[in-house]
């Protein structure tokens, strides 16, 4: 059998509401992915360490505690330290729209709020994984550039 998409689903911090994480984990499993679930109350360090050892393609964090700004930036930093930035970080939970935008600028791939159909998450991961195997760097850079250009145009107006 060939390569499977590997996803680590983690619950960082003290928030103990893991229903959502489990729903997502089950959906990804049923979509043919290998899902590593690490359980409740994980630290950012242990999540990144597990992601490195398991050589996952994606880290999905479920955060309902309000600590998303701190946790995501810490995870991204730790990944940088381990030279593992090609691992895509995504998330879900109760995150205000403004924060979502900030986080996506920071380097988080995508955030899924309450009510997101699980198929949307599956499709999004599949698409990214596909893009990654095609041409990893150029695609990402292009995406960033085009975003910047759009912003500038808006300002001029």
């Amino acid at each position, binding site marked *: 059998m060939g390569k*499977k998409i590997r996803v680590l689903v983690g619950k960082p911090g003290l928030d103990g509401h893991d229903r959502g994480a489990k729903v997502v984990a089950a959906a990804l*499993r*049923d979509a043919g992915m290998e899902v590593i679930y690490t359980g409740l109350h*994980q630290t950012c360090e*242990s999540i990144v360490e597990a992601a490195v*050892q398991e*050589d996952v393609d994606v880290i999905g964090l479920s955060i309902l505690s309000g600590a998303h700004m701190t946790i995501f930036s810490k995870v991204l930093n730790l990944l940088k330290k381990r*030279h593992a930035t090609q691992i895509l970080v995504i998330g879900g939970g109760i995150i205000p729209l403004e924060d979502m935008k900030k986080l996506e600028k920071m380097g988080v791939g995508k955030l899924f709020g309450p009510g997101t159909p699980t198929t949307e998450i599956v499709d999004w991961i599949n698409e990214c994984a596909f893009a990654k195997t095609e041409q990893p760097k150029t695609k990402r850079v292009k995406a960033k550039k085009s975003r910047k250009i759009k912003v500038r145009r808006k300002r001029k107006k």
Partner: protein
Amino acid sequence: MIFLKKLLKGEKRTVAQTISVVENEGDTKILENIFKYTGKAYHIGITGPPGAGKSTLVNAIAKQLLEKNKKIGIIAVDPTSPFSGGALLGDRVRMTDLALKENVFIRSMASRGSLGGLAQKTKDVALVLDASGMDYILIETIGVGQVELDIAQVCDTTVVALVPESGDSIQAMKAGLLEIADVIVVNKGDREGCDSLIMELKFALDLRQQKAGWHYPIVKTIATEGVGIEELVATIQSHKEYLKRSGRFEKDRKEKLKLHIHELIEEKIKSHLKEFVIKDDELEKIINRVYERKLNPYHIADEITNKIFKVREDV
């Protein structure tokens, strides 16, 4: 070869990426390169029915071995769904004590269609961990029934974990799981029925032919609380010493290598068969004739294999 140096040093990201290559690609080049650095790690297998506490036992055993300053690699296998091809790998949930230990490397594997309790590539992944300088490799199977016995072909010491609900002496006398056990653990020892299961097991094991010099020890544990783990690790250690003392260690490992080579040859022949010997359209014609009962499958199989081996004889 910077990559090889990093791998032999046990640099975790390199080890992880190497495992992915080994797991996903049919290419055996990496394994050929690292094979000479393997053979040093001692392999301990943990198997048993679902929910027996295998992951928790692995966690507890690893913690004990860590205290002795050992380096430990863990491979935890969970089943792949035959329907979706996906898998939920949840063994790490029980191993949070080990998450940040410098000397521990944990890798979850999905069984990917293999039926023997391990994944097809588990043996190869163990080789990578072996080369990366581990002292011990703990391999945890999926939750097994009675005949998923692959683990015994990979490990030096096989630990079978049972729980008080696992059955009576008749279960223990049946062929299968208990036959591969070097050490038996009755976990969840605080539950009712534990002592009577141990009695029944002792009775059943008495009836069995003993391997010379080794009686099958039964250890009672409560893995979540660490009770009995020290004794379990000591028992595994004494099995290791027994193997070395009696010369069985070398003999067993050679037997396993022989099996490994046989498996590889079989695999090669199988893929060769599919690619070259039987072409689909040709086979379809044959199947049509077999369906009409003008040919029979036994004769066809003979004919085709004879053709293959004739080619060999000519050379």
